Each structure stands twice: as structure tokens, then as C-alpha cells.
């Protein structure tokens, strides 16, 4: 029987944003738990934007890709924009070879860039001030 590893991915709340920093390789179950936690917290904190930093992910396979896409779609339905940041060059290369895309999910180079995009997006669709 293999060990059941529970990898809790930290979700930081910063104003109207949630920032998720993936620190190590995640199992499929870890990814699904992250999805569920984000869907719940985005509602609880009335989040407008979520950044998922995957700089530390050394492999993006079809499952991880599909789950990140569904996270972004779920969060959009919950009223938050998701930006994936930190895809490493080697990971991007392997994703292209495998045929993976993140579809309509916004990506950015790093956390700073991601935050800048979020500020712009949220300013753009809100006219009543924040």
C-alpha cells in the first residue's frame, strides 16, 4: 500500500485576490483538492482574481493541464479571473510536444506580470469603483 501524501497548497488572500503558490510536484488528488479549495475560498472572500504560480511545477501533463483549465472555468463562473503564471521554458516545450493548451486561460510570465494583468482586467470591468 502506498503512502497517501496530503500536500496542502497554500492559498494566500491579498485584498480581492487569491494567490496560489504551488511549491512542489502535485498528485492528481492534490490538484483536485486545490480546485475544490479555490472554488470555496473564492466565494467566501468574494475574490475577483486568482493567480496560480506554477514556477515550481517541473511537469505539466494532460491531467494537470485539464485541471488548471477547469479551475479557471469554475472560478470564472464564481466571478473571479484566473491567471496562470510561471510556466517554465522546458515545461512549455513539453506541453507543445504533448499537444496541451490552456485554452482561453490567461497566462503571464511571473507573479508581478500576473498581478498587473489582474488589476487591469478588474478595473476594466468595474465602473463603480473598488
Amino acid at each position: 500500500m502506498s503512502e497517501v501524501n496530503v500536500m496542502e497548497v497554500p492559498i494566500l488572500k491579498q485584498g480581492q485576490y487569491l494567490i496560489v503558490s504551488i511549491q512542489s510536484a502535485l498528485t492528481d488528488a492534490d490538484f483536485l483538492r486545490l480546485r475544490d479549495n479555490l472554488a470555496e475560498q473564492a466565494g467566501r472572500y468574494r475574490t475577483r482574481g486568482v493567480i496560480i504560480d506554477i514556477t515550481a511545477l517541473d511537469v505539466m501533463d494532460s491531467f494537470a493541464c485539464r485541471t488548471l483549465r477547469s479551475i479557471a472555468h469554475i472560478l470564472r463562473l464564481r466571478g473571479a479571473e484566473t491567471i496562470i503564471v510561471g510556466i517554465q521554458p522546458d515545461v512549455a516545450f513539453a506541453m507543445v510536444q504533448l499537444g496541451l493548451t490552456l485554452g482561453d486561460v490567461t497566462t503571464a510570465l511571473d507573479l508581478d506580470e500576473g498581478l498587473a494583468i489582474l488589476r487591469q482586467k478588474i478595473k476594466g470591468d468595474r465602473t463603480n469603483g473598488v
Partner: protein
Amino acid sequence: MVSDIIISIVSEADIVAARQKGRALGAQLGFSSSDQTVIATAISEVARNIVIYARQGEIILKTVLQNNRNGIEIIARDRGPGIPDIARALQDGYSTSKSLGLGLPGAKRMMDEFDIVSKVGKGTTITMKKWVK
């Protein structure tokens, strides 16, 4: 001399272990970091196939040598239900689970050599190789 590495796949946590061992062996053999990532990703796909369709099986990692070139051989073996239509399983976007259907065709694209032997009711063995450039 590196001996074979056998990783038994019984749960999805083993998928991560298998690809990490594949990356480590790839690094040892002199693959570029980009090729190490490609190898780890291909292992992730075939290992997940084992978990999804056969529930258990094993991944064997070997060092191979041909014409003075080092390579890695990855064997994914299970005694699961087998694949009735291999040609279809190798088509992009075809899946009998809820996946994207990119796993096997993707792994095939990523590796230099790729071979599947499958018998319905008996199991599946995927053998793939990649050579150091």
C-alpha cells in the same frame, strides 16, 4: 552501470514517483533539461493510463546503448483490460475515460520510439525509447 529501475504503480501518487525517477535517470544519462522534462511528462502519461485503466502495473526504466548513443527505455506494463483498438487509442482526442485523449498519442510524439502490445483481457505493455542528442 545503471541497473533497471522498477516502480510499481498502484496509486496516483506513484505517477509522481515514476516521473521523478525517470527525470533523474535522464539527467544521469546526459539528456538536456528540456528532454528530461519531456521524458518525465511521457512517463506521467503512461503511468496515469495504468492507474486509470488497469489500476495497477509497473514502470521499468532502463539504460540502453545503440551506435554509441545513450538512451532511456521506458516500459509501462499492466495486466489490465487491454486496449481493443490500438490505432484509435493513438488518435489525438480519443479517450474512453474523461481525459483529453492526448496521453498516448502525446507520449508517442514525445519519444523517439514507441510500441504498444495489448491483448484484451490480458493487459498492455508500452515500450518507448528516447536517445540522447
